[in-house]
């Protein structure tokens, strides 16, 4: 295991300490050491935005805490949902009295812990509503959308929900807009090498050299198939062939395209893939309204890429254009 760490059982705690020291203008501590909030949260008269999940996905989840984005985050162990208490503490840190939108990904542990946290919050009269991201196409068939897991599309859900809340939307309006964002979003990933949870010390899945896993999940969940390694152009074709018909996306659509590395794939390769994706979309008459290329949602040091596409309408465009500032995403006007 080649890692820059100290005690493998304390990687999350030590990362949190470093994060606070590195971003004092963005995040502040709460009473719960695993819950950080935007320095100005709770913001008067604004719906609070909360998310949370297992660690190991930097910049997700804490990297999206900031201005006009997420107000408070719950950070679990590596690849493991935060306990209910943490989500509940995040609700308290984000709530200004206007309610809390908890925008998170579809995983069994997160579903249970959020459900319990909402029950706890009811006792405090904090109103919490949820949107559960399910943008990963290969994780379940189209007739079982509620079984699909949430992946990099979550970033667009936070961006849209965060903007809508900053514009003064009510809890129901924020929830509706964030739901529309994720319902209009489709993603998939290709994995090229495995990752190692520090406390385990060795990878618990393998991807043989010269092969790639199509449809891999953010924790190494098996995908659709393992096949020989392809060129970037072939990967772009393979991913768009799966993503585009699923919504479907078609000629004349304005879309956001988000290409994210899974951890150790260099920026150079992400831009090569984006170039190939852009060619396919422009051939099909699909207009890229806003591209994002970078490391937005990773899986420790896994190699590989994810492609996310979101179809826009006027209100989603307004939310995507809205200013925001956090470690993972900075936008200062269109």
């Amino acid at each position, binding site marked *: 295991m080649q890692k820059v760490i100290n005690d493998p059982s304390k990687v999350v705690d030590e990362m949190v300490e470093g994060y606070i020291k590195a971003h004092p203008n963005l995040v502040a501590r709460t009473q719960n050491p695993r819950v950080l909030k935007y320095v100005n949260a709770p913001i008067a008269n604004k719906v609070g935005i909360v998310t949370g999940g297992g660690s190991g996905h930097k910049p997700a989840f804490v990297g999206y805490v900031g201005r006009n984005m997420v107000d408070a985050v719950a950070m679990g*162990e590596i690849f*493991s*949902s935060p*306990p*209910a208490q943490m989500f509940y503490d995040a609700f308290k840190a984000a709530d200004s009295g206007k309610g809390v939108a908890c925008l998170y990904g579809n995983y*069994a*542990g997160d579903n*249970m812990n959020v459900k319990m946290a909402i029950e706890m919050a009811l006792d405090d009269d904090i109103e919490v509503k949820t949107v559960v991201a399910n943008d990963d196409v290969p994780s379940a068939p189209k007739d079982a959308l509620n079984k699909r897991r949430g992946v990099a599309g979550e970033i667009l859900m936070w961006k849209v929900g965060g903007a809508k809340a900053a514009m003064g939307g009510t809890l129901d309006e924020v929830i509706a807009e964030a739901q529309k964002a994720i319902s209009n979003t489709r993603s998939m990933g290709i994995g090229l090498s495995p990752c190692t949870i520090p*406390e385990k010390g060795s990878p618990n899945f393998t991807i043989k050299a010269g092969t790639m896993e199509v449809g891999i999940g953010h924790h190494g969940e098996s995908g659709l198939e393992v096949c020989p390694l392809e060129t970037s152009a072939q990967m772009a074709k393979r991913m768009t062939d799966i993503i585009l018909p699923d919504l479907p996306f078609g000629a004349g659509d304005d879309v956001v395209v988000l290409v994210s590395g899974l951890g150790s794939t260099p920026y150079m390769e992400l831009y090569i893939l984006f170039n190939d994706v852009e060619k396919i979309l422009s051939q099909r008459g699909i207009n890229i309204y806003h591209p994002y290329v970078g490391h937005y949602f990773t899986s420790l040091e896994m190699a590989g890429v994810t492609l996310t596409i979101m179809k826009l309408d006027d209100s989603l465009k307004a939310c995507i254009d809205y200013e925001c500032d956090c470690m993972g995403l900075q936008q200062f006007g269109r």
Partner: protein
Amino acid sequence: MTCVSIQDGSFILMPLIRAIQDNKQYLSDIDGFIGDGDHGINMNKGFTLCEEQLKAEPGDLSHGFKTLSHILMSQIGGSMGPLYGMFFSAMAKASKNKDTLDAAGFGQMLTAAKDKVQSISEAQPGDKTLLDVLLPAEESYRAALNANESFDSCLDRMSSAAEQGRDATKDMVAKVGRSSRLGERSRGVIDAGSASCCLILQVMAKAIKDTI
């Protein structure tokens, strides 16, 4: 009527904690085949925190389960935190303000725990989860109780049903949780949650039988 004193909960809590500590590696290893291999690590972390707290603040059985439940729900997370958190919370409530435990009393605890776990989990029987142990174990216990079998015998029936339930998960395809992403490839190994659930029920049964 056979019954045991539960004014000091350590006769169940301590063997339970030791069993999880001793099986940390085993639980992680079976989880590693089709999950992410951290089941033993997380369970051990929670149960060991509980051991420290109970040494500082011992109490009756209800107190012990409540302490364990609180730690699992506030510090462990994942799927097992809430599932076992609810399981032990229900057992704590069902044994509250009682000095002794008899066959009917343990039946109430077991049924309460089963109902609580079902209330939070989306899993159905056959989905390759700890419910495939908990449901038949509770059912067998209840059948034995209704047939007026002894406390000992009810516990034996629960233990063997738990074991059969655990082993039956081997041929199941996972439908919920992380291993469900593997589909057919999840067949052939037992479910880690079912293994820990079987262990917990069997250790409880043995601890009670040793005390009767």
